[in-house]
């Protein structure tokens, strides 16, 4: 056997030995994510598939559904102005809510990040409060705050700032405040976690180089916190899209969100296919937002590089 042949043979043997190892290496990531993947598929994938299938069933009489196949529900979503209007209303409300939550959350997180340690404890405590109370209890709190017999009106009247009692109950503003209040803690914590990873000396460096506060914010803070802002925005938006109790309890009579209509069709009207079609719209909307956020984050990352 020549030397060259020996080398080839040894290389072949090594390659043969390396193949199972490479296979194993390729399987490791899958093995690691398998438990989470199974949980995701069983607890999220299957229900969504079931909901999708339900949305094509028939609703012909007082039964909650009749097995079959129809696109009537989806056609109804397009042609019925109540349903199509509810989709627009929900998206609009969720966008404003997400924007407000991120803006306010960013402000608070910045205060906590820059401020003395005592502020951190205080603000984190405040941010935790809404998470410790159920949504229904929070609604009752707003019910005591917004009406003309409520705390807000009473306080302003007592302070002489207004001449007559007034009510903010059952307005879009009240619904927006309620939704923002629910989503704000999450935005705050997400942005704070990003800020905590930034070296504060960057602010000093920026200042030393002659940048003012606004320039520092635009050129230093914004690029560094952009991913966190996007995650916070997506979280608040998704949360607001699915919440129905708060907008229906605090908003005006005509504030019909998708969540409200899902509840109405599913429970009140016993029309499971219609409720499922609306739910699928929500799922698709949320998935689209997630994809959009991923693209924006990737773009933000390239910008940062």
């Amino acid at each position: 056997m020549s030397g060259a042949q020996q080398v080839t043979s040894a290389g072949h043997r090594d390659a043969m030995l390396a193949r199972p190892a490479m296979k194993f290496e390729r399987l490791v990531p899958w093995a690691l994510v398998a438990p989470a993947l199974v949980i995701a598929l069983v607890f999220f994938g299957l229900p969504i598939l079931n909901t999708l299938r339900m949305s094509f069933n028939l609703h012909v009489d007082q039964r909650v559904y009749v097995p079959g196949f129809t696109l009537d529900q989806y056609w109804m979503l397009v042609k019925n102005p109540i349903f199509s209007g509810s989709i627009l209303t929900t998206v609009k409300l969720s966008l404003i809510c997400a924007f407000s939550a991120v803006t306010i959350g960013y402000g608070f997180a910045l205060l906590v990040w820059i401020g003395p340690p005592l502020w951190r404890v205080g603000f984190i405590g405040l941010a935790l409060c809404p998470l410790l109370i159920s949504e229904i209890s929070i609604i009752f709190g707003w019910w005591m705050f917004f009406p003309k017999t409520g705390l807000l009106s009473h306080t302003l009247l007592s302070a002489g700032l207004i001449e007559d009692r007034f009510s903010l109950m059952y307005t879009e503003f009240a619904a927006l405040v309620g939704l923002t209040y629910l989503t704000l803690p999450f935005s705050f914590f997400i942005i704070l976690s990003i800020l905590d990873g930034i070296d504060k000396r960057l602010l000093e460096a920026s200042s030393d180089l002659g940048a003012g506060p606004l320039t520092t914010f635009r050129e230093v803070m914004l690029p560094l916190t952009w991913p966190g802002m996007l995650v916070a925005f997506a979280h608040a938006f998704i949360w607001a899209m699915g919440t129905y109790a708060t907008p229906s309890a605090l908003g005006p009579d005509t504030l019909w969100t998708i969540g409200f209509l899902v509840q109405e069709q599913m429970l009140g009207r016993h029309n499971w296919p219609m409720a499922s079609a609306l739910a699928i719209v929500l799922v698709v909307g949320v998935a689209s937002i997630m994809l959009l956020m991923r693209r924006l984050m990737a773009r933000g990352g390239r910008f940062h590089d």
Partner: protein
Amino acid sequence: MDINNKTSRLNRRRFIRSVAAVGATTGFALAAPAIIGRAGVASAKNSFAGENLIVVSWSGNYERVFRETVIEPFNAEFGTKAETIGGWDQIVSQIQAAPADNPPFDITVTDEYVASAGLAGELYVKTDRAAIPNLEAVYPWFHETRPQDAAQYGIPFGGGSAVLLVRNSIGVTPDSWKHLWGEKLAGRITLDSGAWWYTLAIPAILKSPDGRLDAMYNIKTAEPLIAELERLKVAKWFTDGAEQANLLVQEEADAAMSYSSDTYTFLREQPGEYVFGVPREGTPAWAEWYMKVRGTKHGELADLFMNYLLAKETQERFLANSMQFVARSDVQVPDHWNGYPASNEDYHRMFQVITMQGWDGIMADYQAFDDRMKQVIVKTTG
């Protein structure tokens, strides 16, 4: 002697056999509940002890009164572990979503709407009338207002109705539904948008010469009634009892189409604040039938409970704490219930139910009804 001895032995043997037979029969009778699993309804006190039973009643004030006046006394009498949970429009979906042999509850309250939807899905069990002797004391109205087929399911416990509730300071006597369209209540009323069919029933009652609701069962004949609702000036529509109570307490509204179970709470907790009454034209109402749910594993206890629901003491105890009406015709009417119906004719005159046949009509065009009512809300609110 032998003969005598033989006779004596025979007698003794017969005697022993007789004693054994009597003993065995008595023993079997005493042990029967344990052997066959259940005793008869009449001798049920011990045989159901410790058994669970989940009964759905209407959520809100009704649930509290039902627990205090029916569930707790029932458990005290039979040693059972019956409990009640509140429900309304989710009842049918909950049963439908559960396995057929493992329902989420054993008995449920129904009105015509919940009964119709549940019967369409075959979610209830027919009643063994022989197990409910108290059914004899029920007003015929309950059976006269629903199809015979449907009346084979469940037992009528009572019912509820809408009443006109007005803040005392407004100075309107709640004797006619027409006040809702009057100047004094313009922009001050709250009406139901969740169960909008009861709201739609008001113009149906006003426009019908005999107070019947037939016109509202078809979207075409209902159109003039819907147009009538569009003339209202509503402060805020409510979707449930809690919201209605809130609107009144917050002074966002001063008058309401209220429901009898909520009205009693207003009467008790804010005495003198409101005046209320069943208007002279009649009022939208519903009959409450408690139905055994398919797949229940407590069928015999459910029978016992349903018979207990119709016991005179149970009905009087419940009536004494509510503004509902009950099924029995021989109850003592409490002082707070002015104008309680005194005869079957009174039931027909005062209470107009949306019949189960009517629900077939409404459900055939449900989305069209719902869309029109949402347009009414847009036009009348604020």
